[in-house]
């Protein structure tokens, strides 16, 4: 399991959730709020997929943030 922490000042919740939705067929996600962060925990059968999805999630969330958080 890899954890990615998205600060709510920098990533709107809709952008994080939108990114998770795009990748949900490639891995399992647990999404919780912890303080100032929207925390996403990524799990996949293969470690390399888990890592790749966790990392790509950040890029996608950034893209959605720039677009206004909408998918």
């Amino acid at each position, binding site marked *: 399991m890899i954890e990615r922490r998205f600060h709510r*000042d*920098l990533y709107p919740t809709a952008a994080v959730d939108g990114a998770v939705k795009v990748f949900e067929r490639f891995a399992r996600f647990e999404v919780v709020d912890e303080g*100032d962060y929207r925390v996403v925990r990524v799990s996949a059968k293969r470690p390399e997929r888990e890592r790749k999805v966790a990392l790509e999630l950040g890029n996608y969330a*950034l893209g959605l*943030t*720039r677009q206004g958080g909408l998918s």
Partner: protein
Amino acid sequence: MLDGFPKDLAVGDLAEGSVTLTVDAAVYPLEAVYGAAYIFIDRCFVLLDRPKAGSVSVTLTDKKGAADADSLRRMAGEFANELLTQAWRQKIVEENRVILETVTTQALAGAAARPVSSEPSLDDLASFDFTEESFDDPLGIAMSWEEKYKKKTPTEAAGEASSEGGASGAKP
């Protein structure tokens, strides 16, 4: 540590192939951070964070994995330059908004063969009365550089803060 960068501003991780830069949010607007970070997403994994109030950190991780010190340094340097460019560009666009919008409108109207009716034009500029007070000078042409950018004395700053608002800056 990255050569040429203060330790508290940029840190590299050779094994991860990543560099983390911390920028002052008062100096670089968030939009500039987004814009600069975004241009790296084809070759890096990008993550932003707020390590403390007033700061934004940007972690760039090379998609190719482990990197050498020189490539991390160049990545950090390119990000810093892009960040400056984006921050400055926001100000430039704001200051030059009239000319940019005028030219864009004219270009698109010309291309679409639509008459430009209510948008400001160069003819409007020609008929503009430059003898008017700078209060009604939206282009700031009659205003000297000093007037526009001079540092305010504490008295002036306090006076402005207690006033009810400045010029409307109506566009021609």
